[in-house]
């Protein structure tokens, strides 16, 4: 069985079978990162370029480690130190990279659709590492992998996603994925941060965190993008924390065995209180560990054997 596509652009277009194939493959990759010699020769001679137009620690490092553990050569380009500062367009940069014959290009860009444009333009496999407020498919895949590993499955679970839904590509990808896999998804956030017609994605909308997390199996907290404060989407971080943070008081509304997730980076004391982030319900660092395995799986499935 193989993944019958050139690129991974979003969860929206993936089928349940494809998601299961990716997650099953990722499960098998976990073990490699626990070895003394954390490397297999599978992608020897392949070149992977990480093209990041936005800041990132987790995703970029995770892709780099994933490539290296598969013996690929990984090259990182960040916009701030590239010809982008000299005014080169995305298309020109991409065409130049293509001319150097890489096998996979991983791209993060602030413009929604940037990876899709490159996918149509280049013969290389493109992996979307986050495009604007559109999708962040590898994050959703690692989240689903983590949920599956901890809960034994996804179907039938109640998942609450809390925070700035409107600007969150993590939320969008997860809503696509989790609803496809049969979970019931509830979202909550200030009314200014709930996009219009989000119900059409198959979620239930609440304006209070307490309603969304009641009896939840999983609570996914989103980073409040502090730069949004200037757009007057909420009065102050303090007030946001008061109404929408996950803390010792309101977590009791969820199921006793609730698991708390966060895609990072966290604003401790804003959307999540430190005792919850570091507490027994938190699987935030498991998400990071699984992220490497999911990205290894995608690199493996996208390269080779397709010619």
């Amino acid at each position, binding site marked *: *069985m*193989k*993944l019958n596509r050139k690129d991974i652009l979003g969860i929206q277009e993936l089928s349940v079978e494809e998601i299961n*194939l990716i997650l*099953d*493959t990722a*499960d*098998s*990759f976990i*073990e*490699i990162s626990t*070895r*003394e*010699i954390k*490397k*297999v*020769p*599978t992608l020897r001679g392949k070149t992977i370029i990480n093209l990041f137009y936005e800041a990132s620690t987790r995703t970029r490092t995770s892709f780099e480690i994933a490539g290296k553990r*598969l013996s690929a050569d990984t090259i990182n380009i960040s916009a701030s130190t590239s010809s982008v500062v000299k005014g080169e367009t995305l298309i020109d940069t991409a065409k130049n990279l293509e001319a150097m014959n890489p096998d996979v290009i991983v791209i993060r860009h602030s413009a929604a659709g940037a990876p899709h444009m490159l996918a149509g333009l280049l013969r290389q496999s493109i992996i979307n590492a986050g495009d604007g407020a559109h999708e962040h498919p590898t994050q959703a895949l690692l989240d689903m992998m983590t949920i599956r590993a901890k809960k034994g499955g996804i179907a039938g679970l109640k998942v609450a996603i809390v925070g700035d839904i409107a600007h969150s590509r993590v939320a969008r990808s997860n809503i696509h994925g989790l609803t496809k896999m049969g979970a019931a998804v509830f979202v909550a956030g200030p009314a200014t941060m709930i996009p219009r017609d989000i119900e059409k994605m198959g979620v239930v909308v609440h304006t209070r965190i307490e309603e969304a997390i009641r009896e939840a199996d999983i609570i996914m907290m989103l980073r409040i993008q502090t730069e949004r404060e200037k757009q007057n989407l909420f009065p102050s971080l303090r007030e946001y924390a008061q109404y929408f943070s996950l803390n010792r008081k309101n977590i009791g509304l969820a199921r006793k065995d609730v698991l708390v997730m966060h895609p990072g980076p966290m604003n401790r004391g804003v959307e999540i209180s430190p005792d919850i982030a570091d507490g027994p319900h938190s699987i935030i660092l498991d998400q990071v560990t699984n992220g490497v395995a999911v990205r290894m*799986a995608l690199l*493996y*499935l996208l390269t*080779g*054997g*397709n*010619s």
Partner: protein
Amino acid sequence: MEKKKIVMDAEGIDRSLTRIAYEILEKNKGVEELVLVGIRTGGVFLAERLRRKIFEIEGREVPLGILDITLYRDDLQTSHRKPRLGKTDIPFSLNGKKVVLVDDVLFTGRTIRAAMDALIDFGRPKLIQLTVLIDRGHRELPIRADFVGKNLPSSLWEAVSVILTEKNGMDEVVVELNA
């Protein structure tokens, strides 16, 4: 011409494994430092059976590991089909161990080459020995088995299948002519 020939039945397989278990113990002078590693999937079932037989003989459990060699294959770039990746599970160190690698059929030797590369990534075994139920010849690499259930001269147009109860509900080895 359709032809399907049973070359080994359940008792034949069992007797071979009993003999191999004794041979492994004889050659290694017991179970000290001995570990079994089965190659997914057929080799794993055979390794489990060998482990039981060794326990019956010596009264001691031998550690058993599972190896998926997919990531070490030399045809990933050329083959059109990507094999589904299985889990590797070797929950013990291989440093200084006598590793008995177990597979069902020895053919070109490429699987064993991949398996040896994988094992070396887990440490430095004292030695690696190879056990196969069927050796059908046609080697493409300088590899030979230490313990063989049955030597089965075959033509390249034949398919040799080891059918095992754990997977297929019965035990037998069959040779079929490929269409």
